[in-house]
C-alpha cells in the first residue's frame, strides 16, 4: 500500500483504528488543527489526553496551578511524581509521551485577555473551574470568531455546549445568571464526572475540526450520573442575547 503524503508509516499504524472512520483527509485535518485547552484539572486532563491520542497536531494547554495531592483523585494526567510541579509542564510531559506527533505548548500563567489574544487556535476548550476565567475565554474566542466548547461539573452532574459565533450566542449570554463570587468548601466531584464530560468536550472538538456529525449548538447536554441520564435541552437564541456578546 502506498504511503499517504502527510502521514508517516508510524502515524498510519498509530491511527489505524480510526482511519477508516475519518479517512486520511480527516486525520490530516486533526494533524493541522490548533486547540487551546484552558484549564488542566479534571476536565482538562480528560480532554487533552484524548485530543493528543486522536492526533490533534497542536495543543496549547493553560493552567496557573501546581499539582496537589487532592488532584490525583480525578486529574488523570498526573501522578505522585508530579506533586508540586506546574500543571502545564507535568501535563506536557505526559502528552508528549502519549503522542510524540502532537506539538504541546504548555502555558503556566493566569488567564488574561492579552495572553489568550496572543495565541491563534482553531478551537477553544473551556475546562476552567470558575466563571470569571470562562468569560475571559469566551470574550476572546468570540472576538476571534472561533468555536468554544464549554464544559462544567459538580458532584455526579455536568453539562456541555458549543458556542459557535454566527450560530449561537456567546457563553455570557447563554449563562446570564451566574450567581455571586463566594468562598465555598472544596468542590465535591466524583472522578468519573469530569472524565465523562471532558470526553464529550473532546468529541465535540473533534467534530468541529473534522466537520462531522451534529454539534451541541443551541443545545445544552445535561448529564446526571446518578440516574443515569443524558438530556439535551434545546434553546432558541433571542436576538437580544447577542447584545450581551459585544
Amino acid at each position, binding site marked *: 500500500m502506498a504511503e499517504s503524503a502527510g502521514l508517516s508509516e508510524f502515524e498510519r499504524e498509530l491511527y489505524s483504528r480510526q482511519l477508516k472512520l475519518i479517512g486520511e483527509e480527516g486525520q490530516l485535518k486533526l494533524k493541522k488543527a490548533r486547540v487551546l485547552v484552558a484549564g488542566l484539572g*479534571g476536565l482538562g486532563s480528560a480532554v487533552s489526553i484524548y485530543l493528543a491520542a486522536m492526533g490533534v497536531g497542536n495543543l496549547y494547554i493553560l493552567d496557573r496551578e501546581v499539582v496537589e495531592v487532592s488532584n490525583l483523585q480525578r486529574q488523570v494526567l498526573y501522578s505522585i511524581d508530579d506533586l508540586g510541579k506546574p500543571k502545564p509542564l507535568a501535563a506536557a510531559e505526559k502528552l508528549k509521551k502519549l503522542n510524540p506527533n502532537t506539538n504541546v505548548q504548555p502555558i503556566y500563567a493566569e488567564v488574561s485577555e492579552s495572553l489568550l489574544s496572543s495565541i491563534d487556535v482553531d478551537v477553544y476548550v473551556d475546562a476552567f*473551574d470558575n466563571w470569571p476565567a470562562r468569560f475571559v475565554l469566551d470574550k476572546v474566542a468570540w472576538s476571534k470568531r472561533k468555536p468554544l466548547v464549554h464544559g462544567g461539573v459538580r458532584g455526579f*452532574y455536568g453539562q456541555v455546549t458549543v458556542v459557535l459565533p454566527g450560530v449561537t450566542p456567546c457563553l455570557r449570554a447563554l449563562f446570564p*445568571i451566574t450567581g455571586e463570587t463566594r468562598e465555598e468548601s472544596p468542590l465535591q466531584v466524583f472522578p468519573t464526572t469530569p472524565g465523562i464530560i471532558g470526553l464529550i468536550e473532546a468529541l465535540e472538538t473533534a467534530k468541529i475540526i473534522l466537520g462531522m456529525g451534529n454539534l451541541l449548538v443551541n443545545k445544552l447536554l445535561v448529564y446526571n450520573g446518578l*440516574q443515569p441520564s443524558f438530556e439535551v435541552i434545546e434553546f432558541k437564541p433571542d436576538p437580544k442575547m447577542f447584545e450581551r456578546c459585544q
Partner: protein
Amino acid sequence: MRITGEGERVVENVSSVRELLARVGLVGEEVVVLRNGVILTEDDELSDGDEVLVYVVKSGG
C-alpha cells in the same frame, strides 16, 4: 416550573425570574432559566401559566 433532575413543581404569584429563584431557594446559584426554549435573565417578567425550566449550571472543572 421544572428543575432538571428534581422534577416539576408549581410556583404561584411570582412576577419575575428573580422572584422565582428566590422562592425556590436558588438565589446566588448559577442557573439557566428557559421559557419556551428562550433563555431568560433575572429581570425578565413571568406570567401565570408560564412553563419554565430551570437548570442549575455546574461550574467546576
